[in-house]
């Protein structure tokens, strides 16, 4: 059981570190390269660096609100 916990923890930290490094490189380091450098091929245009997190944040807030509403309605129906 503890190895499963450790594996999940390791996976989580790996995901978070990779997202952080990719995003940092994308936002901070990429503008310092020449526009015809080959590394620009691996990164989306920089507008997406704003659109994707905002979209993910809005989706998360929507999901949270729906979850809270669903739980509230279910508890109300059970009481009534």
């Amino acid at each position: 059981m503890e190895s499963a916990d450790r594996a999940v923890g390791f996976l989580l930290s790996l995901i978070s570190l990779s997202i952080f490094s990719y995003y940092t490189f994308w936002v901070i380091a990429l503008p310092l390269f020449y526009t015809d450098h080959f590394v620009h091929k691996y990164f989306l245009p920089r507008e997406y660096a704003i659109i994707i997190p905002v979209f993910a944040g809005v989706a998360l807030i929507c999901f949270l609100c729906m979850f809270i509403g669903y739980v509230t309605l279910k508890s109300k129906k059970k009481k009534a």
Partner: protein
Amino acid sequence: MKHIVKIMAVVVAISAFWVGLLQTSIVSQDYTWLLPIYFIVSLGCYGLLMVGIGLMQFPTCPQEALLLQQVLYLRFYYNLLLYVIVLDEDILEAKDFLKQRDVDVGSD
């Protein structure tokens, strides 16, 4: 309180720096929201990282787990025993009740 003041001071300093960069046109106005979103994303990443590290380092205490399991078994059997005793009492009570009403119970 002091901790909050420190954090607010850092936030104000960073936003002043960013607004300065924007106003002097070193960064184009299209990228106004880049810094706040970058910090929010890195904060989320930091939280995930702490959760992952905590998961990896969480101790499992195998002896305590064994003791707990034994305690749970003991409690289960104790409850089972109580339940059986109560059932027996109920059966005896019901038999007495029926005998009073002159019903032949014919028990085993």
